[in-house]
């Protein structure tokens, strides 16, 4: 049996599949070569909305005000609804009969393709909103670009989701401005959140050969092309919030190819427990 993979092993997913295949008699599918880049691209979108949706849902019952509790739950709900469409399409493209639920509940951390920023712990309310704002600003640009996808299935999901995400972005912009340009305490916390999260924003715009392949086919947008519009939104809102954009271009990366921080494992343990303990359970 192969040795246990760790985060620094380059072909961690392959090792994991090998280990899984050696330890139990289940078939762990790999996508067909022709569709693989497209499948990957869809996972990168759907896994980010899934993990962020789960993270935001952790606030349920814990928010500083009832209205905010409800708002966070509704944002989480939109993200999970969008995930059902993205991962549903990913399963269709993969062609191995996996449903959106199978992809969400029955993959391990190394097969998740979400951006690292969405698995960051919630921190305080301001930290959660800063993460939401930085992601929303990217998410809306991504969806606007995907609305022009050469694949009509991608375009129709993007058009629908963009209507919802426009509301997410307006809400997170509003609160980032109010808290940034608020009291000394709220300003300090928002600036700290911005500095902690900033190094996780660069990954949104990094491309690899799989992005390039899917973008060349016109199915997805080249991630780098989303940056100028994102920067404009971020500059405008953070400026109005009297916050200072950190210097330095260092970017944490790895999420898009399955190399995650330790936080993702805890999220999956929580999110996947029921289906792992009671396979196929429904209610």
């Amino acid at each position: 049996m192969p040795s246990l993979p760790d985060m620094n092993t380059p072909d961690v997913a392959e090792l994991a599949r090998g280990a899984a295949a050696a330890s139990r008699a289940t078939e762990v599918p790999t996508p067909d070569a022709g569709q693989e880049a497209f499948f990957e691209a869809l996972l990168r979108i759907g896994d980010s909305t899934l993990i962020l949706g789960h993270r935001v849902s952790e606030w349920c019952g814990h928010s500083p005000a009832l209205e905010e509790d409800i708002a966070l739950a509704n944002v989480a709900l939109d993200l999970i609804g969008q995930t059902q469409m993205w991962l549903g399409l990913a399963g269709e493209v993969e062609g191995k009969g996996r449903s959106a639920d199978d992809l969400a509940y029955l993959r391990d951390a190394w097969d998740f393709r979400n951006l690292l920023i969405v698995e960051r712990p919630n921190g305080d309310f301001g930290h959660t909103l800063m993460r939401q704002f930085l992601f929303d600003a990217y998410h809306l640009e991504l969806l606007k670009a995907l609305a022009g996808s050469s694949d009509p299935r991608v375009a129709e999901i993007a058009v629908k989701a963009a209507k919802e995400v426009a509301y997410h972005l307006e809400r997170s912009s509003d609160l980032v401005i109010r808290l940034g340009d608020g009291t000394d305490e709220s300003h300090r916390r928002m600036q700290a959140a911005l500095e902690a999260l900033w190094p996780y924003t660069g990954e949104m715009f990094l491309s690899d050969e799989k992005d390039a392949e899917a973008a060349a086919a016109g199915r997805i947008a080249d991630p780098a092309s989303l940056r100028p519009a994102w920067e404009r939104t971020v500059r405008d809102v953070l400026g109005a919030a009297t916050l200072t954009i950190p210097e330095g271009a260092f970017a944490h990366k790895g999420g898009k190819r399955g190399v995650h921080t330790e936080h993702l494992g805890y999220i999956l343990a929580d999110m996947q427990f029921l289906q792992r303990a009671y396979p196929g359970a429904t209610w």
Partner: protein
Amino acid sequence: MATVTRPSPKEVWDWLSHVPDPEIPVISLTDLGIIRDVAWDDDTLVVTVTPTYSGCPATAVINLDIEKALRERGIEKLKLKRQISPAWTTDWISEAGRDKLRAYGIAPPIDGTAADGRLMGRVNRMTGGNLTVPCPRCGSTHTTKVSQFGSTPCKASYRCDDCLEPFDYFKCI
């Protein structure tokens, strides 16, 4: 061979206009504009439904309600088709539906005010600085938004500054 009398699509539309929305039962599924098509495919009745919000938990209940209502009318072969394009918009809520919402205490959507992500720009462009949602109870335009999201994703929370009642506003999308 038994003769089967098929109801016309128009009759089916009429039946569906009596099926209430599970979350806002004063309006029907046809008022809400989520029934996109009713047609016969050979001996199967095909009803095309579009979801309101992607994650709307009422979607499954709506499908069950449609099925129940049509089975009660004697429809045996039924197919519910999900269609996400063109994406649902509050512009499709009927005039009658808007009146019913208002009477129920929910301010109906103000067409043309959907979010585009540019917070200040949008409000300024459309309303000269302030999106005014009239109170469904007293009609006052002195109202304040409490939260972008209300009891469901499709609504925002408002408060009337004259009669002091809180109310839901059905956001334009």
